[in-house]
């Protein structure tokens, strides 16, 4: 396990993230244009989705898929309750901000999903292609729970205005559409498609991932520099403890389902991750009173680096032990 941690720490991905983080903290003008960052995210989600689909075309869908999705949805619905309780008990965050942060931690981070699959490929550990669908299914439920919590304190915009419209926007948000769309295309075109797209979508993946993590390091570094004031001790502790709680719950669900080591590692990582794209945008619409900087600083500034450097190798090691 220490081997794994070290190998992870010294992987190009983690090192490029650290480079970006360091550059931002040193106030270097190194930067990745917004359009390029969006290209990188698009590419990575397209690649992961597509490869998942190809894998499913090859191995077929198992009954485990349904169980894994159910487990993911259950986690996403319940984790915000735990997160909210924890935040209210330990920190000074008011109910609305606590609910908004809880939504982020109940949902999942596509960025972290990309990172764990990169790490698994590097270690040549297989995971089931349908985990792409599990990831997509875990994005939304946490938002519902969080809004139910917040409803007791504020008349959320999503009630006064069009709640349905907001939910539709979350369901059709770009990252889900490209992830599931590429998954479907991979499943339809199978090996034929994979051969055609291999040089671009598969071989170049680690390189794109390094560039993307450099950018995430820069953004996280800038976020930390500007969001310092939100990082009280209890709130920062939450951003590390909550992933571990989510990871434990996911592990407990993965074993009875009988997921493979790779898929178990993915499910654990998803539960341990905090949303950075879909939930923040939904919160701006539904809970505008919440300060977006708090959740973003925690999610990308604390939890993502923690997961990238320590969490993911830990989750992979644990999954290797507990999974069949």
């Amino acid at each position, binding site marked *: 396990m220490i081997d794994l941690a070290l190998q992870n720490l010294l992987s190009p991905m983690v090192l490029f993230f650290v480079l970006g983080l360091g550059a931002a903290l040193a106030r270097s003008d190194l930067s*990745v244009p*917004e359009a390029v*960052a969006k290209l990188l995210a698009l590419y990575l989600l397209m690649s992961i989705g597509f490869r998942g689909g190809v894998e499913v075309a090859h191995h077929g869908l198992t009954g485990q898929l349904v169980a894994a999705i159910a487990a993911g949805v259950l986690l996403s619905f319940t984790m915000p309750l735990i997160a909210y309780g924890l935040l209210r008990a330990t920190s000074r965050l008011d109910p609305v901000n606590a609910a908004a942060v809880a939504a982020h931690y109940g949902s999942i981070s596509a960025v972290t999903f990309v990172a764990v699959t990169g790490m698994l490929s590097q270690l040549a550990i297989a995971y089931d292609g349908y985990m792409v669908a599990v990831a997509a299914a875990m994005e939304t439920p946490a938002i519902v729970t969080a809004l139910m919590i917040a409803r007791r304190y504020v008349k959320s*915009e999503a009630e006064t205005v069009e709640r349905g419209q907001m939910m539709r926007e979350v369901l059709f948000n770009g990252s889900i559409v490209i992830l599931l769309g590429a998954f479907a295309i991979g499943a339809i075109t199978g090996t034929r498609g994979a051969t055609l797209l291999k040089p671009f979508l598969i071989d170049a993946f680690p390189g794109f991932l390094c560039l993307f993590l450099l*950018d995430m390091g820069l953004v996280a570094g800038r976020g930390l520099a500007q969001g310092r004031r939100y990082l009280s001790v209890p709130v920062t502790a939450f951003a590390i403890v909550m992933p571990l709680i989510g990871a434990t719950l996911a592990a407990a669900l993965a074993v009875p389902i009988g997921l493979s080591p790779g898929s178990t590692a993915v499910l654990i990582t998803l539960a341990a991750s905090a949303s950075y794209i879909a939930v923040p*945008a939904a919160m701006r619409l539904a809970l505008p009173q919440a*300060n977006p900087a708090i959740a973003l600083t925690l999610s990308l500034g604390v939890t993502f680096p923690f997961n990238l450097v320590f969490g993911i190798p830990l989750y992979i090691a644990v999954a290797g032990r507990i999974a069949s």
Partner: protein
Amino acid sequence: MQTHPKKRIEIVTEMPMLRRITARLDEAGVTGWSVVPILAGHGQSGDWTAEGQISATRQMVMLISIVDAARLDAVLDTVFAVVSTHIGFVTVSDVAVVRPEKF
């Protein structure tokens, strides 16, 4: 060249709100609007920059609409109702145009 007075409304708002606000502008009967990008900013909720961002959450844009003074109050009312609970603000200034019938 003869010019005619109109009002220039400038709305600085969060990207996720854009669709909702333009829908309100359309309802309020403005004849047109334009969206200008903002790269970075500073305000009561801190600093932000679009650099390297893949999420639109902390990103602002500037909506510009030239309207007739007669319609100003209606537009401000409907827009302000949405903007007021969110990050952002609205300014109004005087401009002169050559083709008054366009606005």
